[in-house]
């Protein structure tokens, strides 16, 4: 059954594009046919994170304007089967596409794909409304800091009023050491506050930056903590029961974590 899922956040820079790229890659590697849409028109980035920037000919806006057919604009990934990108236009503005056009586009893609992942621009303005218009479900990305969580609350309210269901939360860039020291909101705090279902927790991980530098999403070939976390999210998306990582499992080897583990204690 084909699913259209929008990835959103209130605050910018919390990891929507990174998450979209990694989930798309993980789902494709698991055998699903996936298209990732960059709906951040004017500020495209998903192409670079996926490492497909050199192969773009047409954009989503060209499709909507009728300048090309949908199939012509889709960029096929050469590393994995079943992964495609529908790029954003870099030289246009957010109002180049209307919500009804976006919805028609997503519906057309349903015919050919198992998963349509839409990478939304941050915020609650037109760009977000466009990105969300074709989606059934939503993933809200937040970092565990006050302003990001506050803005996530706003976006969840909007998604609810747009009847997206389910709306699930990804907590990104969790820093296990700071949580352990009591100096960062823990996942349980964020869930208490936002009161929505959690689908994954991704730790802060330098590998995210290096993988973006190389244009290779972590879920392509890495076993780093963030790669595992993204992979787990992709499995939960298809209904698998995957236990959530403990804070201590998220570092490859914090000193205290190793001692605790050696003593058979949990963090």
């Amino acid at each position, binding site marked *: 059954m084909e699913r259209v899922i929008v990835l959103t956040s209130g605050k910018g820079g919390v990891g929507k594009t990174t998450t979209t790229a990694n989930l798309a890659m993980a789902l494709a590697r698991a055998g699903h046919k996936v298209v990732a849409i960059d709906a951040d028109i004017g500020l495209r980035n998903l192409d670079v994170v996926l490492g497909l920037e050199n192969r773009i000919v047409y954009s989503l806006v060209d499709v909507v304007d009728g300048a090309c057919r949908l199939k012509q604009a889709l960029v096929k990934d050469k590393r994995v089967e079943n992964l495609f990108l529908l790029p954003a236009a870099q030289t246009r503005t957010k109002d180049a596409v209307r919500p009804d056009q976006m919805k028609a586009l997503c519906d057309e893609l349903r015919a050919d794909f198992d998963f349509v992942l839409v990478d939304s621009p941050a915020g609650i303005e037109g760009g977000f409304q466009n990105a969300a218009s074709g989606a059934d479900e939503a993933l809200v990305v937040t970092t565990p800091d*006050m302003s990001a969580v*506050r803005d996530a*609350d706003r976006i969840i309210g909007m998604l609810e009023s747009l009847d997206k269901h389910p709306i699930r939360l990804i907590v990104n860039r969790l820093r296990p050491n700071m949580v352990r*020291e009591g*100096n960062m*909101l*823990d996942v349980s*705090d964020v869930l208490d*506050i936002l009161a929505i279902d959690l689908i994954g927790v991704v730790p802060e991980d330098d590998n995210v930056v290096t993988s973006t530098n190389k244009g290779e999403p972590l879920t392509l070939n890495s076993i780093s903590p963030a790669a595992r976390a993204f992979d787990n999210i992709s499995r939960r998306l298809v209904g698998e029961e995957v236990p959530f990582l403990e804070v201590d499992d998220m570092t490859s080897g914090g000193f205290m974590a190793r001692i605790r583990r050696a003593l058979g204690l949990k963090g």
Partner: protein
Amino acid sequence: MSFFKKLFGVGQSRQTAKERLQLVLIHDRADISPEVMENLRRDLIAVISTYMEIDDSNIELDLEREDRSVALVASIPIRNVRRNAKVADKGQ
């Protein structure tokens, strides 16, 4: 942070952040639009008018934010209490 605090992992700012966020969200979420407030005022007048005669040009309706909560505070001047209000209620 002192050496001991560090050693035993007792930070403060997590709890502070959580409490501040909870408060700020109560405020954010109670940000009710003028349209909704107007509908609420109209409905309140209709309900209360079945019990008493009120001065509906001098009603004050506000959300008041206190430490941990938000309250709906209404000041509704009464002109006269209807003699058979209770009876009318039972009759329904």
